[in-house]
């Protein structure tokens, strides 16, 4: 991506007393992206978002928008709008007045303002609620008003702080797709703070996984899921099997890892140079594991006993104890409704996976 990023964060640090909320973060966000800042609470994602909005000033570092340094620009002069986690709707104003608030601040004429408000009400499908006050709305409706208000000025960048956090599960799933649709339709760059990895996966074009004020990994959801760069990143998204071992040999595409935990040789795609004898962790997702009939000397084969079965409807999760005592998981789709359970407790199974289905963690 050679184009000028719409947001450039350079070496930004924010301390509160002796606590580093954000610790030397640099990242770039491009036009039209749906970018997620993901992490558990206290990882600094909200502080970073608040610095973008202008509510916090970085202790160090600069923030550029469209190439312009806005680090010291007050929030009311930034071409950015934000949707607050609490929605922060003005309780003494009607839905219409809430949405029109930002437009009136920039002195938009009344008829243009009305037109824009109608457009926004339409966009979030609450046209009938314009005259209501916030306390007369349901949680989902308030969320829509907040979204409409933050979009009304057609900002180039919209910041969303846990936009779906206060909704129940069903509504959350539906709203996820709506958010993505609106973002695509308006072409606005969305920067979303969320602690929900599923939400980040579904909506984002790229995800920055944060941990203790630093960025653990920035990538597309798919790359982070399939090729996590650290144990933290690996375990943050879904479940993963981690098998320790020592690099035994390396050829053009792959390394071979001797793993006592797996009870044999593991073969993984890895093209970077790595010293023989390095301690590594091979990471493989439960759904990449395949059942085979026993008795093969191929690498990436493990044998164990099924200890637990969790039936989730669409899939079942099997917990398997290997000879080394290491417990791993694998999943199977339940393709038939009442088919005889092919696998049962105490059954010995042999599992395998392809060398490109696993990742190598060196940390």
């Amino acid at each position, binding site marked *: 991506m050679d184009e000028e990023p719409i947001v450039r964060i350079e070496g930004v640090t924010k301390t509160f007393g002796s606590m580093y909320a954000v610790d030397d973060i640099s990242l770039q966000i491009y036009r039209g992206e749906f970018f997620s800042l993901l992490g558990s609470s206290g990882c600094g994602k909200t502080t970073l978002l608040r610095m973008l*909005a*202008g*509510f916090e000033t970085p202790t160090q570092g600069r923030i550029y928008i469209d190439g312009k340094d806005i680090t010291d620009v*007050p*929030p*009311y*002069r930034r071409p*950015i*709008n*934000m949707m*607050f986690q*609490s929605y*922060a*709707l*003005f*309780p*003494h104003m009607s839905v219409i007045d809430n949405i029109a*608030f*930002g437009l009136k*601040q*920039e002195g938009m004429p009344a008829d243009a303002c009305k037109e824009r408000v109608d457009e926004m009400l339409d966009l979030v499908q609450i046209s009938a609620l314009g005259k209501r*006050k916030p*306390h*007369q709305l349901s949680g989902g409706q308030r969320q829509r008003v907040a979204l409409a*208000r*933050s979009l009304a*000025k057609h900002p180039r960048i919209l910041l969303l702080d846990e936009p779906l956090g206060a909704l129940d599960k069903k509504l959350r799933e539906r709203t996820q797709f709506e958010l993505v649709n609106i973002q695509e339709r308006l072409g606005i760059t969305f920067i979303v703070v969320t602690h929900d990895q599923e939400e980040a996966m579904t909506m984002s074009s790229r995800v920055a996984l944060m941990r203790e004020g630093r960025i653990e990994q920035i990538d597309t959801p798919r790359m982070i899921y399939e090729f996590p760069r650290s144990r933290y990143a690996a375990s943050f998204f879904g479940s993963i099997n981690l098998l320790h071992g020592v690099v035994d040999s390396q050829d053009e595409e792959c390394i071979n890892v001797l793993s006592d935990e797996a009870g044999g040789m593991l073969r993984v795609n890895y093209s970077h140079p790595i010293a023989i004898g390095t301690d590594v962790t091979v990471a493989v997702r439960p759904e990449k594991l395949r059942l085979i009939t026993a008795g093969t000397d191929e690498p990436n084969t493990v044998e164990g006993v099924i200890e637990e079965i969790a039936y989730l409807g669409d899939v079942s999760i099997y917990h398997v104890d290997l000879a080394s005592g290491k417990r791993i998981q694998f999943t199977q789709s339940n393709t038939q409704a009442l088919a005889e359970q092919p696998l049962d407790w105490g059954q010995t199974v042999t599992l395998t996976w392809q060398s490109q289905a696993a990742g190598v963690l060196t940390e």
Partner: protein
Amino acid sequence: MSRLQRSINWGRLGIAALPWFWLGLFFVLPFLYVLKISLAEPQLAQPPYMDLVREFEDGIMTLVVNFGNYQLLLEDSLYINALMGSLKVAAVSTFFAVLIGYPMAYAIARAPSHWRLPLLMLIILPFWTSFLIRVYAWIGILKNNGLLNQFLMWTGLIDAPIDILYTQTAVYIGIVYSYLPFIVLPLYATLVRLDQSLLEAAADLGCPPLKQFLLITLPLSLPGLIAGSMLVFIPVMGEFVIPDLLGGPNTLMLGKLMWTEFFANKDWPLASALAAVLLVVLIIPFVLLRHMEQRSEEAE
């Protein structure tokens, strides 16, 4: 079961009736008594007014109602002027109390949370000493060779002491000082609950700080502002001690006048009529306010 329910209902009824009983016993009854006196004729006796129901020589019980006191209140400009004087003092005092009290309440509400309690204590603490002593202290400050004049002369701002004590200014100073907490506390209570993210949202939508105050903070603090203003305005309307101690002969207020009628002129009926008029004057804004509140609730 039904017996238990009945006893609960009685209990509830009792609790609901208690404030009404209280209001009746300590407000409505005494006020009716005042009203009765206001309709009587004064006499030089003990008590200094005549009964409304009297037996004349012909032995017939007659109800004698005297509206003369009210008529006098309307006709003699002294009383109208006193009412206007009280209204003016109450309005101006409330205005200055808001002007000084709002920033104080705002500052305390915005202070770091561990500072708020000590700051509130500073507002309340003087009220642990006697009201009279505090008003007397102002005499010491405001008199011609008092602290204020000495200070002003020491700074060279004035060459000769200025007359403050026994003027209207002194009354305003005394009243605003005395009633300040009544406006600071309710305002603080509403301001401290104000969601800060609302101001951030306003800023985010392009609203600079001063406008944020006018469009968000001020309208949302209106309930506290109105409550505080009433807590100042209403008692100041009948205030007697401060104008008497700090004010001059020109200070004309209902409270002072009532005291004069009651104790100096021994005209209980006229004083009672004054008290009744004051109550009506004070109830009007209250009723209007309730009406407005109800209307805005209905509008929502």
